[in-house]
Structure formats: structure tokens, C-alpha cells
């Protein structure tokens, strides 16, 4: 295995850890839908960047940032129209993104794939993961209070609106990291499904965070192995295309289904 490939694998596993942590709080904040929207907003930026010939992740980062501000603004308004607006943005981003993304890159932009990494991209990615983990660790007490009661959190001196923005930015950074190998359609799933599995298995916060991260890392590890060894699997007359993004999310879904069978510990 080349070092560029190992960088990619290590960063994917680290991203999974970050997704498990961030996803646990997203689930508790009941923002799985907003999370999906944020990831879809990456697509138009990604497509435009490909079309104009610059780094697609930069394009994705730009629209992700705008999308984050948009969702934050909607959250602050707290009106009933938020659901509608989110629904519209969700589909519009997908449509516009699909229109502007060059067709040869579309499948990868939507569903991800395995790409080798340069040392500098790898280092940047690792820094981003460290930043996300540090945010969750150092701000866990504020995260806990804001999700229990924004009102009590504000009465304790937390600027809840500003803190929500920080959280959304960290969420978007996680999306950006996952985009590389999962694509705009599936990256949201790595944030939510392992967290939903962890929630199913545990009822204390620490165990929940550990379980979500573990399921996320395992899903990515197994998904990587499956798509590497069985990328074209023939089952009888059917030929399965086990590409990376769908393989990872399928594994995560299997974990979730299994978790439904198990009682909480």
C-alpha cells in the first residue's frame, strides 16, 4: 500500500471518530434533518469548483459555510417555516449541485470514493479532526447545558445563539472531512446513523459518545475493507458495485439494525 493510500485510510478513520462525537450531539439536539441539509449544500460548491477547475473541497467549504449561516439564521428565527425552508434548501441544493457538477464527476461527488492523499492534505485533515475533538472535549459542558435547556444555559451565562453557530461550524467541518470519501448524499448518514446506534445501546452520556464513535470507526473500517476486496462482487447473475461510500453506510445501517435487537445497557 502506498503512503498516500494509508494517509487516506487513517484520515477516514479519524473522520469517523469525529463524526461519531459530533453526531451524538446532533442527535440529542434533534438536528439530524438540518445536518443532512448542510451536507447537501456542499454539492453546488463542489460541482462549481470542478467545473471551474479548482480544488473541489474549497468550493464545498465555501457553500458549506454559507449553508451553515443559513441554517443558523433559520434556527434563530425559530418559526414554523423552518421545516419548509429546510425542505426547499435540501432539494434545491441537490438539483443545482447536480446541474453544475460535470457528469463524469457526479457519481463521486454524490456517493464518494477512495482517493489517495498528499501529506499536506493529510496534515490539514488531521488538524481539522483534532480541532473537532478538542471542541467537543473543551465545550462539552456548554453542549450539555444548551441541549438540556437553552433557557437555563442562557441563564447560566452562555450565549446560546453564538454557541449554536460554533457547533454548526464544527458540524460543517466534519461534513467537509467526510465529503471526500462519502460524497454529499452519504456524509450526513455517517454523522447520524452511528449516533442513532450508540443511542440505542446506551443511556449514559459517556457510553453514548464512546459507542457512537466506535460504531462510526468500525463502519468506516469494515466499509473500506469490503470496497477494497470486493469492489465488484458477483452474487449469482447480479453484479454488485460495492464502492466505498455506499459500503460504509450499508455497514453502519447493519449495525443500527442489529442495535434494535439489543436492550440498552
Amino acid at each position: 500500500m502506498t503512503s498516500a493510500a494509508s494517509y487516506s485510510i487513517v484520515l477516514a478513520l479519524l473522520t469517523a471518530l469525529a463524526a461519531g462525537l459530533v453526531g451524538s450531539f446532533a442527535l440529542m439536539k434533534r438536528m439530524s434533518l438540518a445536518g443532512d441539509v448542510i451536507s447537501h449544500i456542499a454539492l453546488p460548491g463542489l460541482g462549481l469548483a470542478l467545473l471551474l477547475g479548482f480544488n473541489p473541497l474549497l468550493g464545498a467549504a465555501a457553500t458549506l459555510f454559507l449553508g451553515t449561516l443559513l441554517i443558523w439564521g433559520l434556527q434563530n428565527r425559530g418559526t414554523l417555516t423552518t421545516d419548509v425552508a429546510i425542505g426547499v434548501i435540501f432539494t434545491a441544493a441537490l438539483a443545482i449541485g447536480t446541474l453544475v457538477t460535470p457528469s463524469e464527476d457526479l457519481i463521486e461527488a454524490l456517493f464518494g470514493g477512495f482517493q489517495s492523499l498528499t501529506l499536506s492534505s493529510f496534515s490539514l485533515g488531521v488538524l481539522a479532526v483534532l480541532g473537532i475533538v478538542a471542541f467537543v472535549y473543551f465545550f462539552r459542558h456548554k453542549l450539555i447545558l444548551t441541549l438540556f435547556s437553552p433557557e437555563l444555559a442562557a441563564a447560566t451565562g452562555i450565549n446560546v445563539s453564538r454557541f449554536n453557530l460554533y457547533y454548526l461550524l464544527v458540524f460543517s467541518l466534519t461534513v467537509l472531512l467526510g465529503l471526500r470519501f462519502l460524497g454529499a448524499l452519504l456524509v450526513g448518514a455517517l454523522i447520524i446513523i452511528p449516533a442513532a446506534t450508540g443511542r440505542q445501546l446506551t443511556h449514559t452520556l459517556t457510553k453514548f459518545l464512546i459507542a457512537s464513535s466506535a460504531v462510526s470507526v468500525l463502519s468506516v473500517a469494515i466499509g473500506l475493507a469490503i470496497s477494497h476486496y470486493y469492489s465488484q462482487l458477483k452474487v449469482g447473475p447480479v453484479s454488485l458495485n460495492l464502492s466505498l461510500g455506499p459500503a460504509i453506510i450499508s455497514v453502519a445501517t447493519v449495525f443500527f439494525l442489529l442495535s434494535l435487537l439489543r436492550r440498552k445497557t
Partner: protein
Amino acid sequence: MNLLTVKNLSVQIEDQVILENLQFELKPGETLSILGPNGAGKTVLLKALLNLIPYSGEVCWSSNVRIGYVPQKIDADRHLPLTYKDLFISKSRILKVTAEIDAISQRVGLTRKMLATPVGHLSGGQFQRGLIGFALIGNPNVLLLDEPTASIDESGEEHIYELIHRLQDQYKLAVITVSHDLSFVYRYATKVLCLNRQSVCMGAPREALTPEILEQLYGPSHGYYQHDHGEMSRVQQT
């Protein structure tokens, strides 16, 4: 010296005036009860005092004030994997204080087991005691309580009021509480503020709460009667 001085306090939400021109004071150790019908602006008043909503006028807390707040209800997901232990620790870390979590839990009547139980699995009374315990983290000298017995059955109400009064003695607290329970008001309140957008009455309960004032607040069929010794009680509606 006043712990709190409120002058010309008004709150407008969108185009609606919720509170108009309120003035009152609170001294250390006092208990101020806020009475008023639904929609009178009681919760809004507490939120303005906490600076959680925009207002006009003056809300002046003394420089050494430490406020504990017990909201009327928490919209938290009852399935959150959070315990009061998590919440007590989080609040104390944010306030950078070393809270004696065991002692506080004991004072509000939460056992270690309850402290480690996810909040959604606690009974209404236990949940409310936890909220009061949460308010005590940071060693407050004033407690703001918004209908602290709203989600509790009648037998539990008495316990919560006794608990608040006992804590007030132990911690030398001033208390501002929104309450519909006149027996609490007569027993423990040193002052009462009757609210219906504007201040309708203000003063010691026995002087301020006349039948006319109560009628003005709750309407002619308010269901309160006056005891021979001058106290008002709620008539059991049948």
C-alpha cells in the same frame, strides 16, 4: 441595600405590550410572590429580570448578586442520556465553582441513585427537585422560581414549597416566585406583586390582597374567599 431595583420596566414582544411600567424592589432574604392570571406576563417578567429577553427601563441587580433560576418547564427531550449529576457538574464547571454536589443533592432530597438516573426517567417531583438543585449550584443569594409546582401533583406541591422555604433559611436566600398558590403566598411571602400587564398591587400579602384586587386579577368568579382571620384561600372548584 436592595438586591434588586426595578424601575419603569416594560416589555414589548412584536407589537404587543406584555409588561408596562413596573417598579419594585427586593431586599436580601425577602420573598416576593408574583400573582396574576394566565397571560399576565409573569414568566416574561422573570425572563426580563434574567436579561433573557429585551426590555426597556431599569433592572438593577446589586453587584454581589448570584442568581439561581428554576424555569416553569423544560422542553428537553425526555430520552436524553443526561443525569442531574452531568448537569450539576457541567454548570459548576461553566461557573468555575467547586460545587458540593452530594450536599446539594441531599438538601433537595435527591438520592445518589436519582442523581445518576437519566432525567427523563425521574418522576415529576424528582425532576423538579433536580431543577432546584441545579439552581443552587454556584451558591446563589437569590432564587427565581417560575411556578415551581406546575408539573407536580397536589401532595408533592407542599413538599416543594417546604423545600424552598427550608433552603431559603439555610442559604439566606431572597426568593422571587411566580405562584398561583395563595396559601404559599400568605405563609411565606413577605411581598406580593399582582400583575396583569401592569402592577395591580404591591405590598405585604395581607394588606395588598383585598377581595377587590383578586377580583380585578382573576375576574368576579375567581373562586377565592376570605378567611375569618383575613386570609384568602382558593375554593375547590366542583
